[in-house]
C-alpha cells in the first residue's frame, strides 16, 4: 500500500478536496444584494456560475473552503457530492 489509510480515507471523503476546484452551493445573507455578496465572495476565490435566489452555485479551491465558510455573509456552504443515475445494481 503506497498511501496511508488516512490518505485514502481523506481522498474518498465526500465533497472534500484538500486543494483544487470544489463545486459548492452557498446560501448567503443577500445584503445589500446577492450580486454584491457574490462579487465579494469572488475575491475569496469563489467562481460564481449562477445565482438562484439567495443561493450561489460555483466552484472554489478546496484550500479556501474554510475562508468561505467563515465569511459573515455566508450562511451555509454545501460542497458538491456525486449522485448517480437511478438504475438497480442487482
Amino acid at each position, binding site marked *: 500500500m503506497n498511501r496511508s489509510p488516512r490518505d485514502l480515507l481523506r481522498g474518498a471523503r465526500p465533497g472534500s478536496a484538500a486543494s483544487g476546484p470544489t*463545486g459548492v452551493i452557498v446560501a448567503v445573507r443577500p445584503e445589500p444584494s446577492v450580486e454584491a455578496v457574490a462579487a465579494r465572495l469572488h475575491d475569496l476565490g469563489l467562481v460564481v456560475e449562477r445565482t438562484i435566489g439567495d443561493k450561489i452555485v*460555483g466552484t472554489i479551491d478546496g484550500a479556501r473552503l474554510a475562508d468561505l465558510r467563515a465569511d459573515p455573509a455566508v450562511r451555509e456552504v454545501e460542497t458538491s457530492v456525486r449522485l448517480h443515475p437511478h438504475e438497480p445494481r442487482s
Partner: protein
Amino acid sequence: MPTRRKRRVAKPAARRRPSRAPAGPAAASRPAVEPPAAVTAATRMPKLDPRLAACAFRAAREARLAPAATRRGAAGTGAASRGAATAPRSLRAVPIGLQSIRAQLSPTSQRDLEARDVVPVLVESSAASGRGGVGAGLARVATEARRVSRSTVVARVPRTRLGDVAALAGVRRVEASVRLRPRVDLAHASALLFHGGARSVSQTGAGVLVGIVDTGIDATHPGFQADGQTRIVRYVDQTTGASYSPAQIDGGAAAASPDEEGHGTHVAGIAAGGGGGLAVQRYAGVAPGADLAVVKTTFDTADIAAGVALVFDLAAQRDQPCVVNLSLGGHWGGHDGSSLLERVIDELCEPPGRAVVVSAGNEGGSRLHAGTRLPYGADTPQRWVADLELSPRIVQGTAMGLLWVSVWTQREDDLLVTLRSPNGELFRPPRSGRQEADRSRFAVDVSHQVAAYSGDNEFAFGVFAVAEPDWLHGWSLIVEEDRAQGRHGAQVGAVHAWIADEAMGAFVNGYTRSHLVGMPGTAYSAVTVASYATRKAWESQDPALPVVDLAAVNLEDISYFSSPGPTREEQNKPEVAAPGQWLVSALSAQASADALPLWVRLQGAPYAALQGTSMSAPYVTGALALLLEKDPALHWGEMKRRLAKSCRADRFTTPSWNQRWGHGKIDVERLLTIDPTA
C-alpha cells in the same frame, strides 16, 4: 441485472408428469380414467392448446350436467355425441388441476373462448397426413375450414367438438385463435394513457418544455425528431462546457457530446420520445409533442442545481411551462429536503407552470438505513446499537473497505453517538468539528455538526479498513442518551443512520425497509416517483437470449428495487408510482455494450428495455407535461394534489398513501380530466 432471466422455450407439456393418483380408500374405489399407458401417451402429445383444452372440458361438463333432452340437442352427432357426457378422449388423461392452472394463463381470452359456441382454431397437420392433410376429416367436424399453408388449416369448430378435432388422424396441434392487441407499450395501457390501443387523451405536451438532466442524449435518435428536424431546443454538456442549438444538433455537432451510458436517452424517450424509428410508433413516450432541453451533467450536486436552473431559465425565455426530470440521487444529507440542492429546487419551482420530478431511488431491498426511536422518560438511559459491515472494493487501485455513514438525531435530543471498531476501540466525534484516527489496519474520520437549516445533529463517520474479514466486519454504531450535567437525553428520540452508497456496505441489524428515498427525492416541492412492473418479456438482439422472459417479475406489483419513504421528517415520499420496471424506450446508438448489453436491446429497433425508478420518474414528467399543456399556470402544489387525487388503486396498492406506492398508480387520463375543485 434481472434477478432471473431465461429463454422462453415452452417446456412441452409432454414432459410434465401427470398428477399422482390420490391415495386412500376413496381413491381406491374410484374407477381409473385411463390405463397408465394411455395417460403417458396423451400427456406426451397434448394436441389441444391449454385454452382449448379447458374450453373443451367445460363444454363436456356442461353437456354432462344438462338435462337429457338438452344434451341430445346440443351434442350433435357421431363419435363426439356418443362421448359427450364425459370428457373428450384426448383430454381424459390430462389432470384437471393442470387444466385449470393452464387456463389461468390468459383469463381474458379464456372467457372469450368459453363464451362462444363455435371456436376459431388453427390446426396443424403432421407431414404423415399427406397432401390432403386433415382437411377431409376436419370438414366433417368444423363449420368452416380453410387451408392457409401446407400444414395449417384455420377452422371454426363447435366447442363441444374440439376433442374430435384433436382426435383426427394427422392432427399434430390445435391452437385457439386469440385476439391480439396493437403492441403499444404495456406501460401506457397500465397508466391509462392508452385505451384500446390508442391514446385516450388529446394532449401531447405541445408547448411545454421537458428538461432532462442526465447522462446526455443521442440527438440523432429518430424519436427526438419531427419532420426531419430535432425537437431538442438546447443541449448543454456540463462535462465539456459545450452547448448546442437546434441548428447545430441538426448539423451533427452534438455527436461530440454522446450519451455513452444510454441512460439519458432512454429517460428522455419515456418522457417525450416520439416513437420514431419504427413503422408503428408503439414506443412513443408520454408527451411526444413536447420540446426537449437536455443537460448532460457531471452528477455533482452543484452542477445538477445549475442544470435545473438552466432549463428553467430557458423555459422563461421561451415563455413555456416546464417540467424537469431528475432520474438520479444519493444518500447524502439529512433526508429531510434541507440540502441546498433540494432548497434550490424548491426555489426554482416557486413560479407557476414549473415542476421537478425525481426518482425515488432503487434501494428498496438494501440495508442502507437503520433507525430507532428511543423512548422518552425511561428510568435508565437508553442505548441503541446497529452493526455494520464493509464491502470490499477497489478504490484508487487498492482493495479496501471504505464506508461513510451519517447518523442524524433531532435538535431537541442530547444523544451520544460512537463508532466501535472490530477490536473494541471507541471513536466519538467532538462536540463540533472532526477528528481522524489512523491505525495500522484501519482509519476513521469522525465529525459532528449542527445542520444550519434544521438545527438537527449530523454525526458522520468515515471508515477505511484493509480488505480482510476481521476488519470488514464487526463495526458498530452506538447511540446513547446523554443525561449528564443537566442534559435531557431523548426528547423526540428519533435516530436515523444512512450508509452513503450500497456499494460501501450494509447494516447487519437495526436496518429498516423505510426511509430509503434519497436526495433530491426528499425535496419538498419535488414530485417523487416509485416504480411498478408492467413488462417482463421482449425479443432481444442477444443471439444467446433471443427472447428475454423474466419469470420473477410480478406484473403490476411494486418493483422490488423501488425505494420506500417517508422522509426523516415523516413527510409523504414518494408521491406516486408509475411504470418503471422494464420500460421500452429510445436506445442511444452511442451506448457501450457494457452500459446496455445486447439482451436489453430490442430486436430490429433502436429501442431498449430498462428498469429503475429512473424509468418511472420520466413517465410522470411526461404526464405533468400533458397537464401543463392543458393548464400552463399550475403551481407544483396543485399538480401534486391532482396527482394524488387521480391515482389508481388496485389489489396491489392501498386506499391511502403508503411508503412504497405513495398515493397509488398514476392514471394519466384521470389526471387530465379530474375536476380541479374536487
